[in-house]
């Protein structure tokens, strides 16, 4: 009898285990189906739609300055219900500026933000875009003879004056008279660099012996070669080198380090890349002039939005530079980090 009841208990326990296993199997199958269903979800991505698309066409898409401006433009654009793409970026081929303008026109964007130049080709392309109903605003450099709708300028004259003041300060500090200074102009920028040049000359007068060199920044590798060639061509290294381009600034900084001229030749840079800020911290770069890129971005987007909305927009907007040197570097960085955050 006891044997029978023991056997029954064993069977009952086994039946219980079978029941549990059955539920485990069923739950496992449902979980399995769930896993399989979720497999496809990795392909899904979340994105936001915008009613308008603008194209940003940089002089040099690899330039840090252009990327910084683009970043700020994109950020501001998204806040204002439009999207900006940097035409030619992430493509397998590096297209010329003209090609990138053509691409923007062919892809029927709602507006173009263009780093302008004086060339006739660019002007023609701007006219073509305008003919297609695409408004073009120029930024940093203008294209005067074109049908662009607006120009967002960086106040180059005041920048020249700032450079001049910095030169005067260096001259005073070093008690050098006349102070030799080399200004490296961008080949493509034309008269904007000339404005800076003349503003420096005007503010310094004869206390500075200002010479100039032209650097080709149209392709990624030429600026560094040009800088080296220019410096090698000089009998004596200048007391100050003024750079009007971020890549030129970094190239000059590297060249000064390589030629062991740190301390003897001061650099007045352009733009606030991390390399340049570090060089200021080390004392290799005397000062740099950072663009108020957020202001520029805001002006670009506002100009295009205003034109699209009303058909009219102011032809000229202006923004200033910020001088960054060892004295205000930490404050500037803190401010930048705050903005980044």
């Amino acid at each position: 009898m006891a044997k029978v009841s023991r056997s029954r208990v064993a069977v009952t326990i086994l039946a219980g285990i079978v029941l549990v296993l059955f539920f485990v199997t069923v739950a496992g199958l449902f979980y399995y189906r769930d896993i399989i269903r979720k497999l496809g979800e990795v392909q899904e991505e979340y994105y936001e739609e915008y009613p308008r698309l603008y194209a940003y066409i940089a002089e040099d898409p690899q330039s840090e300055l252009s990327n910084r401006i683009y970043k700020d433009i994109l950020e501001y654009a998204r806040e204002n219900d439009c999207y900006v793409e940097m035409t030619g970026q992430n493509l397998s081929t590096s297209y010329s500026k003209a090609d990138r303008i053509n691409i923007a026109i062919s892809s029927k964007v709602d507006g173009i933000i263009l780093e302008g130049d004086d060339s006739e080709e660019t002007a023609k392309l701007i006219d073509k875009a305008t003919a297609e109903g695409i408004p073009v605003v120029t930024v940093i450099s203008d294209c005067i003879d074109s049908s662009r709708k607006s120009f967002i300028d960086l106040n180059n004259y005041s920048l020249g004056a700032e450079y001049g003041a910095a030169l005067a300060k260096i001259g005073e500090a070093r008690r050098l008279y006349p102070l030799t200074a080399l200004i490296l102009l961008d080949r493509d920028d034309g008269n904007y660099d000339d404005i800076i040049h003349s503003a420096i000359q005007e503010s310094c007068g004869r206390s500075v012996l200002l010479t100039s060199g032209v650097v080709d920044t149209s392709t990624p590798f030429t600026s560094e070669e040009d800088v080296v060639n220019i410096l090698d061509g000089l009998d004596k290294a200048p007391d100050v080198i003024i750079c009007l381009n971020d890549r030129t600034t970094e190239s000059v900084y590297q060249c000064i380090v390589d030629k062991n001229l740190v301390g003897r030749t001061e650099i007045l840079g352009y733009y606030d890349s991390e390399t340049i800020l570090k060089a200021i911290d080390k004392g290799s770069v005397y000062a740099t002039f950072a663009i108020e890129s957020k202001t520029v971005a805001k002006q670009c987007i506002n100009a295009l939005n205003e034109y699209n909305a009303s058909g009219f927009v102011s032809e000229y907007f202006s923004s200033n530079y910020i001088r960054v040197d060892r004295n205000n570097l930490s404050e500037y960085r803190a401010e930048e980090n705050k903005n980044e955050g």
Partner: protein
Amino acid sequence: MKANFFANMKISRKLVAVFLITTVIAMGVNIFIYANLNTALDKINSVFSSNISLNTLQDNLNQIHTGLTGYLETKGTDDLELYYASTQNMNMLMRDLNNNVTDSSIHLAERDIRNMLETYLSTADEAIQAKRGRNIDEYTAKYNECSKIKDYLNTYIYSINNEQFKTNSSNYSTLINSLRYTEIMSMLIFLVASVMNILLIIILTNTITRPLTRLSAKAEEISQGSPENVEPLEVFSDDEVGKVTRAFNEMLASIKDYIARIRTQLITQSEMKEKNLLMETHLKDAQLKYLQSQINPHFLFNTLNAGAQLAMMEGADRTVEYIRNMADFFRYNVKKSSETVRLSEEIELVDSYMYILNVRFAGEILFEKDIDESLLDVHVPSMIIQPLVENSIKYGIKDLEPGEGKITLAVYREGNCCCIRVSDNGIGTDEEIIEKIMNHEKRPSETRGVGITNVMARLDLYYNNKEVFEMKSRKNEGTHVTIKIPLEDSNV
């Protein structure tokens, strides 16, 4: 209910049910996993579909451009047909491309491609129109523009293809990894389901074999002896085993019954043997006593015969009668001591005895007989009346005055019995003594001769009924001893 249904199924059906259930479970799990795995494989296959469609788009664009180039070069109709067919196809393909501005780089590139394709197609149409208008400069310019856009498009398609390939490859590897995970998962499910099936088979086969095991254990128990202590098996099912168990229980009950009957028979037999032995012992005892007493009777019998002849020769008739009665009395003792006799013979013996005693006591004892003649042939054990008469004389009337003592012998029918009653008019017998006699507490040795106890014992053994003998008495009113012989046993 379900368990009973299963329990009552035939064994062959039970086995089929066990295999069916487990097979169906295994198959179900298999099919489920297979179907889901197929879905997963479809998803994996669709991962690179975007690359495939982009390649189709690019091939189609190249065909349009070939058609356009051919038409502009030679104005060939085949080229134009190719151009239109490809354009139509392109319009279909373009529908799948995104047309919205989004912050997804791939979607944006798709939008650019779509718009550039539209620009390309409209420019190409313009070129064809210019060709028809034979405006060389215009269609050359449009063709160059088309070539440029085609170049951009190829670059875009190539780039987006690369970008998508990267994303798709990443998705693919994620999917493959997930698939490995699902493989492990499916293995686990299989494992659990298999364990479940094994347990299910164990339980169900146990349900089938357990009654058989119990049955065999019981059979072994019986084979080891003492089946009467074996309890019948409980029947749980109505299948073959249930039927066998029921039959087994019936067989067990039959065996128990048979054994009980044999036991009762043995007990009866041994009781019978015991009875026979006791009877023999009593007879032997009686015989011994008689033999002891017959030494003289034999001698006396022969001597008396000689005395009778002498008396006859001398002409003493009463003496002859007396001696003959004595001789008859002793002859009867010698002859009939171990047999049943007819009642008439027993009465004759009493007559002889009474004659002798009356001669001896000079007719002092009055002897009366009331005999139903039809009962004279009834067979009775020998020597049952004379001891009673002797007893009555000895203990009943011995203290009476001469001539007052009276012995009455009555033989009559009462119901289905032949009653023999010996009565006296003596002093009677104490209740105590009667009780002792009836309970056999008074030993034969306490009486002289063949005592009343011996008669009772023999009658008990012979008729197996104590009620055959009855003794009644009242103070100073005599004693009545009655023997009731059942007529069916008396071999009339």
